[in-house]
């Protein structure tokens, strides 16, 4: 600034004398402003001189040759960038993030010629600023094209059931591998970190029939559960009942054998006494029995053996008091 301000700058007078210092001042300002660039910490600068690549500069305040001789293009290398496919997140800062036609993008034909609505994202980072800047035009648009083509390729080799349920993880991995290969082949200067499926649905028109399948699955389970319930209501009780019967039989057996042993013991004991005096004992036992039995009888008729003929006259059917 110092050497370009003429000493007579403040002197009023001839306007043509003022034009030169003014021009010089503008030039000086341009010179000063174009001699440095501030590169943010999440970025790198690609330095070119007269259009020729010189080097990649690190973040910070970078001085350069002024007047457009050196140009530093700032590239956000550290930033994790996202592309949305089939849907759009509102408020994204990345101009490539949103799809042009989400509806068409998420309708994908599966390998068994069905259709699925698939939403997914691709996360990437600028890995090589030089390549990113110079190798291919519009690398991020190319990544969009590639991302869609690859997803359709992968889904095109899978059945609708794989896409909707079990194959998700595999689809993500496969799409990531293929997209990484594509990015390398095109020399986009990007690195793809992630391919993630978001919402995956059957098409609206067939969603009802898909939920019908779920419902049928539930019904199947319910029928099985119900039948199992019936089974469980009866069988454990029957098992218990069987055990009870067996135990009862065991009890019967023990009782029967013990009783037999008891009877036999008693018999043996009385037999031993009887054998000592058989005549008397049998007499006694007989009379004891008679004594016991006779009082219970309602009518007793004693007949002399000669009076047998009155026997028919007795009213045998008469009830006794």
């Amino acid at each position, binding site marked *: 600034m110092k050497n370009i301000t003429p000493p007579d700058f403040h002197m009023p007078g001839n306007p043509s004398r003022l034009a030169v210092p003014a021009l010089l001042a503008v030039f000086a300002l341009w010179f000063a402003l174009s001699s440095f660039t501030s590169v943010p910490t999440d970025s790198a600068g690609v330095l070119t001189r007269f*259009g*020729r*690549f010189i080097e990649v500069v690190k973040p910070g305040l970078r001085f350069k040759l002024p007047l457009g001789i050196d140009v530093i293009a700032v590239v956000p290398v550290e930033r994790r960038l996202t592309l949305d496919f089939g849907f759009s997140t509102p408020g994204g800062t990345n101009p490539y993030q949103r799809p042009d036609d989400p509806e*068409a993008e998420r309708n994908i*034909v599966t*390998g*068994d010629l*069905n*259709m699925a609505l698939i939403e997914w994202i691709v996360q990437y980072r600028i890995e090589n600023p030089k390549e990113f800047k*110079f190798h291919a035009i*519009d690398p991020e*648009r*190319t990544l969009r*094209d*590639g991302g*869609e083509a690859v997803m*359709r*390729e992968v889904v095109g*080799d899978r*059945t609708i*059931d*794989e896409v909707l*349920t*079990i194959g998700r993880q*595999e689809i993500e991995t496969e799409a990531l591998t293929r997209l990484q290969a594509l990015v390398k082949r095109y020399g986009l200067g990007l690195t793809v970190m992630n391919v993630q499926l978001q919402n995956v649905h059957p098409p609206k028109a*067939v969603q009802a*029939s898909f939920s*019908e*399948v779920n419902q*049928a699955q539930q019904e*199947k389970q*319910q*029928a099985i559960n119900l*039948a*199992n319930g*019936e089974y469980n209501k009866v069988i454990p009780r*029957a*098992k218990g009942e*069987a*055990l009870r*019967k*067996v135990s*009862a039989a*065991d009890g019967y*057996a023990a009782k029967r*054998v013990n009783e*037999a042993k008891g*009877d*036999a013991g008693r018999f043996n004991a*009385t*037999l031993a006494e009887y054998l000592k005096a*058989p005549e008397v004992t049998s007499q006694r036992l*007989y009379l004891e*029995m008679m004594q016991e039995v006779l009082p219970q009888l*309602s*009518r007793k*008729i*004693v*007949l002399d*053996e000669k009076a047998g003929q009155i026997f028919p006259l007795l009213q045998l059917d008469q009830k006794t008091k």
Partner: protein
Amino acid sequence: MNRAFILSLLCAAALLLTSSLYTVLETEQVIITQFGRQIGAPVTAAGLHRKTPFIQTVNRIEKRILRWDGPSADMPTEDKLYIDVDTFARWRITDAQQYYIRLRDERTAQSRITNILGSETRNSVARHQLVEIIRTQRDRKPVVDASADAGVSNVLPDIRFGRAALEAEILAAARPTLAEDGIELLDVRFKRINYNPGVAAKIYSRMTSERQQIAARYRSEGEGEAAEILGKRERDMAQIESEAYRKVQEIQGKADAEATGIYAAAYGQTPEAREFYTFTRSLETYRTVFARETTLVLTTDSTLLRLFKYGPVAPAK
């Protein structure tokens, strides 16, 4: 005066300088023309270059890989299905001279590519069945969810070529034509293939009927398995009960046999024991046989009443 002279001299110098120097960016190549006629080979090295001022013109041409995004178009496949096909391609200018002569600018080049790739895509799609455009890996077997066992739709139709082969076919067909214009076509890919609305409706109804079939199968499987479980219940029931019966009979029979053995051993040990058993058993039987409402007719000749009749003198028997 002196000052103005210096100023105009400076301006003239600047003009001369800018007209005799030009920069080439990393992303471009330059063709120098003089009155419309090309001078020398294209300049591909980036940096500052010299030229004859005022009479030579700088024509900048892209050096980077360029993008072509085809318009999406309805076209029929060999199996007469109308699909909406969207393709994209990568290309670059390998012969700037030829490119400059034939096409001059990128807009012309893009529409040239559109014409050529559009018709090649149509040709290729029309020669193949839909599935050839959808599928890529020829021998891929679908993963089947064993637990769900959905069955019906777990089949991938067979293909002979596949998407990659079709893309290669289109690329091979378009390359020579574009090479004449100084363009190298790097690759062509199907970006988007969708059913057109008429076809989509048919696909939807097929998908619906397929799902209904699966649902019906689940239901009948449920009924079948329930019936099986109920059958098992009957069987297990019968088995448990009969087994219990068998065990009971065995146990009781064994006990009965043992008891019988014990009785037989006790009562039959000697003839006296047998006799005594018969005697006591008879007495026992009388006790129970003669109950309250029995009328007993005894003759005085019975053992009990003999004494009653004759008195204490025992009769000669």
